[in-house]
């Protein structure tokens, strides 16, 4: 029973963590149309940097890494998120200015592979193929948590962070800025012809999305206490893509549903199943195949996802207005009575 309890909270952790990751990718791809195939690289940067700033100086730890600042939670997490954002600026300057759609996607996936090779092979950076381990469990000292009691507490903390980030993201996507993002997604030539600086807006979307990626990565390394290159193979990006495509591109609630269906039920739940005798690791491969099949089925039969992007009705926009603009409602009523509708 106790084991099941911890399993459930592990699933809860991944539900919320992938919800955060999905929100980050969604603002880049779902809202702004940037095919960021390097997304998992930003998750990894967040994870490594959060881990490295949380750990003490590397001397005597048996690991090789930079930083080592003993930084407490949640500052370590913020540093991880901000570093991922800073890296996004660099990537955007290289790729977004001149490249569009397919070419941009190719450059980004190449970048992800380069980043992977550097982290995997350049040991002084983040301990190479062994990755970082023994990362301190956040809040464990303050709340006197044991290894087991840490799991539900941190799952709940992750849930709270996810809700805060959801609130922030909702504010952005409902604002005129969010509308401009969607205009760029639908047709960047038109958006530019309407006076929108497409590059600057894409850069903003990259910054926001990568911050979410960094936070999501930072939470992963703190939850498990370790992180190494096998955790972020470049193909992992497509798991996050599957989450948002299944849940519903451009819909924040859909992303939570996608995270539940894909990451929690399909990726992590089977990991707790007993191995098939004589076929160790087979479940993992079946899992990967199922994700691929699910992605294809959804794109074929329901590309809008389980919960499609909402139509933002005029009534919702007029509701947001301050009292000084209430004359719009009068205007609406007049039109409804005698207008050409």
């Amino acid at each position, binding site marked *: 029973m106790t084991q099941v309890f911890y399993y459930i909270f592990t699933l809860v952790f991944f539900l919320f963590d992938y919800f955060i990751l999905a929100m980050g990718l969604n603002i880049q791809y779902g809202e702004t149309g940037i095919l960021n195939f390097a997304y998992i690289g930003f998750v990894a940067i967040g994870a490594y940097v959060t881990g490295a700033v949380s750990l003490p100086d590397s001397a005597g730890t048996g690991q090789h890494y930079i930083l080592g600042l003993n930084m407490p939670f949640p500052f370590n997490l913020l540093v991880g998120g901000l570093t991922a954002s800073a890296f996004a600026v660099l990537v955007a300057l290289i790729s977004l200015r001149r490249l569009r759609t397919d070419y941009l996607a190719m450059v980004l996936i190449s970048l992800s592979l380069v980043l992977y090779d550097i982290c995997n092979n350049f040991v002084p950076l983040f301990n190479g193929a062994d990755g970082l381990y023994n990362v301190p469990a956040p809040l464990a000292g303050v709340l006197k948590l044991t290894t087991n009691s840490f799991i539900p507490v941190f799952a709940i903390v992750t849930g709270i962070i996810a809700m805060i980030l959801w609130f922030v993201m909702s504010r952005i996507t409902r604002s005129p800025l969010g509308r401009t993002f969607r205009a760029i997604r639908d047709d960047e030539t038109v958006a530019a012809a309407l006076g929108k600086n497409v590059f600057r807006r894409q850069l903003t979307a990259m910054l926001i999305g990568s911050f979410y990626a960094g936070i999501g990565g930072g939470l992963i390394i703190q939850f498990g206490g370790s992180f190494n290159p096998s955790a972020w193979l470049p193909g992992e990006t497509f798991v996050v893509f599957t989450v948002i495509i299944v849940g519903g591109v451009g819909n924040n609630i859909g992303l939570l549903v996608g995270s539940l269906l894909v990451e929690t039920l399909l990726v992590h739940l089977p990991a707790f199943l007993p191995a098939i005798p004589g076929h160790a690791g087979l479940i993992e491969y079946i899992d990967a195949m199922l994700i691929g099949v699910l992605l294809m089925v959804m794109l074929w039969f329901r590309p809008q996802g389980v919960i499609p992007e909402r139509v933002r009705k005029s009534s919702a926009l007029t509701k947001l207005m301050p009292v000084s*603009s209430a004359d719009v409602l009068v205007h609406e009523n007049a039109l409804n009575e005698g207008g050409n509708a």
Partner: protein
Amino acid sequence: MRKADVSLSLKGEWALRCEGITKAFMGVVAVNGATFDVPRGQITALIGPNGAGKTTVVNILSGSMLSDSGTEHIGELEVSNWESHDIASLGLMRTFQLSRELGGLTVLENLLVAPKIQAGESLFNVFFRPGQVRREEGDNVNRALEILQTYGLYALRDNRARELSGGQKKLLEISRAVMASPQILLLDEPMAGVNPALIEKIGGYILDLKAQGMTILMVEHNLNVVEQICDHVIVLAEGRTLATGLLSELRENKEVVQAYLGEVIDASTTR
């Protein structure tokens, strides 16, 4: 000063002037030294046979495409090869030959994207000046609803733009451009594929915009429309300016008749 911060008030005789514009695609010359002026506050037609380079010129003037050589002025300001968003910020808006609606957005949202400066497009303002964002959004919604009412799209305000018919999309593009309060409007075949009743309506809207002081350059094949609403005509053939003037004068121009008008008149008489 950043290009985006430049504001322009058109005072001279000409709103738009281009000189020696050239553009080639993989060696194929599409525009070959086009030179013309667009008079301020008037409706100018850009006509010519298919492949004359009219749409390429519109693309270059609006910054959607870079020219290989030549200069472009808006008023007294040289804007050669400025980026599209900088040119739009000066007050030059355009529509497209094949309607390009923002399909995933509603009709109303299509218009709300258009205003040039919006406080709500800044991340800082979204979180720290929500009152200002809301007030401005309220004003923009108000104005957008009025424009939709004028252009007969009010009933469709909550429909996704991709659901509109061809004619409705043409109207949406014009109303979206109007929402940006432009000084110069480039219309690329606004009547193409539109039924006769709607052609008349669109013609009326364009005349209204002229009455409001807007300068309009429109690519158009329908010579009846050109005759009825345009003050000035530019004929483009093989990428260069063949002639400019009134349509009635151009009908007497042998070169123009040979290159374009004769062809069209013949075609219309055979129908």
